């Protein structure tokens, strides 16, 4: 993974010093709440319901074991012993003290981490495919480009005060696992007719209040123009994006108001004037790429046989293997998902003991690296198949082996009313309720791949509009209700879910989900997935059953 050089380190250290001074001036009354707000947000600090929340960047979801141990240390020292992974591959702490944040940042800087631009109206942490570098269908590893974009966007002097937040994702494989179409800028590495690799550029995707799927504005962009093209898009947005209404300020609205043609024209016109001034040199791509060269694999095709023996002896292991491991491009290796969706903990939460233990497991089994995924799980990307049985036993003991990855209970969920000051309704307790439907894993596994996303308000942090089943907390005269949508997806076939009908009250939401799942099992054809079934039969049969007795 990318290692800071002296230059990178100096920048992060100076950022800590700057933020320390800003905190000092705020506490001394020299900066007003209003003035401090964007400054702290640009460093990931929210003030919410009970305490501040600090969001820390995990660039494209990649962590070294040493960094994981630092997160454990922070959870122990400054928080209540746990951390929370987000849907954008970042990590959050829910209980830090405002005056201790500079110390937390200094600790983070000591392991090449930071909270720069994890919030606020600026370019946010770049996200990517959690299987980057190991999946079989990859055109090229997207991570070097993520890192190049990270550096370019970090403390960019022109784009620190945009109309609204700005998110970029890069995908290196035809199968989209990074929700690329749902970002302000989505980049797909792609090949042109002559076999050169570059980027397809999409703009204007986004979730939140007005979910929209991004539109292609350039089918092929040469690598050398990557940064100038991004700069052109950002400049057009910075100059013309709406600033009069917070809810109309995302680039998707500018794109809509101008129309994709005029928007593209403006970007291209701006770009032509700067494209020769800001060239991404191949030497720089090579330099960064060197940091992502493959670890010293020991391919082993015979590993399957060892696995077979364990599978026959241990049914739970066999089940876990099916659900929580994935294919790897090197023979004899597998990718292992660590489920942060145990029935006993809020989705995405992990304790400091677990963090330390995962760091040890990463060192022992996966070249010392861990990844965070968009569905709030962790991943050990490079595990030898011959180690899987041992690893599974360790994970079992840590409550990180719930065999539910990609199933109904692998739901994603925002902090909701329990922590977030913007929430209309609880989300964690709904997640819990759904978990309780499944004391029987066989039923869960029979249902197959179903993605449930639960957000506590319209801001949609858990991306409910692209969940196969989306659950959105709404407020009706101070009471918690839930709006259900069906048929959303964030993958290649990205789509927004359709509303099932009127919102349901809190005490009926879990029943409603149970009914929806029942309708699916009754109506599905052969191996048809939930999403395919919804697309085939439409929303009506579900609606009929859910509202039958009301």
């Amino acid at each position: 993974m990318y290692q800071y050089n002296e230059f990178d380190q100096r920048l992060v250290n100076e950022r800590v010093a700057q933020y320390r001074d800003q905190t000092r001036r705020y506490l001394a009354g020299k900066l007003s709440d209003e003035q401090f707000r964007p400054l702290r947000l640009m460093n990931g600090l929210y003030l919410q319901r009970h305490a501040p929340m600090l969001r820390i960047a995990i660039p494209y979801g990649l962590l070294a074991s040493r960094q994981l141990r630092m997160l454990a240390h922070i959870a122990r020292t400054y928080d209540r012993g746990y951390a929370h992974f987000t849907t954008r591959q970042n990590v959050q702490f829910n209980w830090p003290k405002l005056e201790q944040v500079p110390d937390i940042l200094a600790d983070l800087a000591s392991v090449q981490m930071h909270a720069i631009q994890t919030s606020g109206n600026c370019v946010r942490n770049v996200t990517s495919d959690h299987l980057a570098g190991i999946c079989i269908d990859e055109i090229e590893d997207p991570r070097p480009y993520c890192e190049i974009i990270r550096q370019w966007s970090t403390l960019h002097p022109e784009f620190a005060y945009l109309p609204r937040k700005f998110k970029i994702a890069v995908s290196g494989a035809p199968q989209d696992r990074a929700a690329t179409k749902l970002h302000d800028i989505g980049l797909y590495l792609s090949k042109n007719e002559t076999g050169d690799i570059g980027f397809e550029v999409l703009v204007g995707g986004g979730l939140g209040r007005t979910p929209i799927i991004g539109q292609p504005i350039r089918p092929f962009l040469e690598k050398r123009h990557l940064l100038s093209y991004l700069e052109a898009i950002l400049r057009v947005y910075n100059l013309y994006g709406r600033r009069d209404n917070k809810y109309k300020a995302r680039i998707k609205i500018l794109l809509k108001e101008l129309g994709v043609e005029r928007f593209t024209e403006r970007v291209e016109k701006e770009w032509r004037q700067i494209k020769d001034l800001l060239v991404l040199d191949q030497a720089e791509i090579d330099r960064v790429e060197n940091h992502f060269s493959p670890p010293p694999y020991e391919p082993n095709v015979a590993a399957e046989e060892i696995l077979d023996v364990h599978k026959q002896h241990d049914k739970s292991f066999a089940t876990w293997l099916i659900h929580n491991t994935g294919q790897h491009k090197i023979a004899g290796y597998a990718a292992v998902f660590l489920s942060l969706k145990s029935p006993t903990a809020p989705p995405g939460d992990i304790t400091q003991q677990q963090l330390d233990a995962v760091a040890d497991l990463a060192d022992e089994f996966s070249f010392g690296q861990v990844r965070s995924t968009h569905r709030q799980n962790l991943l050990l990307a490079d595990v030898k198949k011959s180690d899987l049985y041992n690893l599974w036993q360790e994970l079992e003991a840590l409550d990180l082996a719930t065999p539910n990855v990609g199933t109904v209970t692998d739901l994603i969920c925002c902090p909701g009313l329990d922590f977030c000051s913007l929430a209309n309704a609880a989300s964690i307790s709904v997640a819990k309720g759904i978990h309780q439907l499944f004391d029987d894993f066989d039923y869960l596994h029979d249902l197959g791949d179903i993605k449930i996303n639960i957000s506590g308000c319209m801001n949609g942090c858990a991306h409910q509009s692209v969940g196969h089943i989306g659950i959105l907390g709404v407020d009706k005269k101070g009471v918690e209700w839930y709006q259900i949508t069906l048929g959303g997806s964030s993958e290649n076939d990205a789509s927004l879910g359709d509303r099932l009908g009127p919102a349901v009250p809190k005490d009926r939401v879990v029943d409603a989900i149970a009914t929806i799942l029942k309708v699916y099992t009754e109506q599905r054809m052969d191996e048809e997935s939930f999403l395919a079934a919804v697309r085939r039969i439409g929303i009506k049969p579900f609606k009929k059953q859910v509202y039958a007795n009301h």
Partner: protein
Amino acid sequence: MQIIKDKEIIEDHWQHIADDPIPPEGCITVSLNRWKAEKDRLIARDGGEIGLRVSTEDSLDEIADDLKHFQLIALGFPTFTDGRTFSFARLLRERYHFQGELRVIGDFLPDQVFFLSRVGVNAFEFDETTDLNDALSALNTFTVAYQAAADEAEPPYRRSLSKPTEGDASM
């Protein structure tokens, strides 16, 4: 009144003229509207230099041809979160090659002067409550930067001297 210019605290000798009559003597700035309405008279005036106040709602295209008349352009922040000012400054320097004083006025913070100086602003006119020494030291917040901008034509990977070799701070 004192301002920061070219990294020094200096006494300011410019006057911002709103709707008042144009004084015969002294350096003055006017709004774009006033400039458009009284351009000929202002050009003919020989009692002092002319500056232009540009707001974030104005369009730079409109002033491109007139830049040679101005010794100063004052970019006004309506609120400190209005980031258009940063693009305006950079375009004025890099695209329109404006060489005169580029000043920011209005609602902005000492915390912004580092980025502002990177996009080409060389003068800062704060309200009276701001400690100019704080603002002056904020100009040195960072000693490194990843981007090319108005102050630095090349990104770090082309500045071989300032980008140290690999592995200097490896974990």
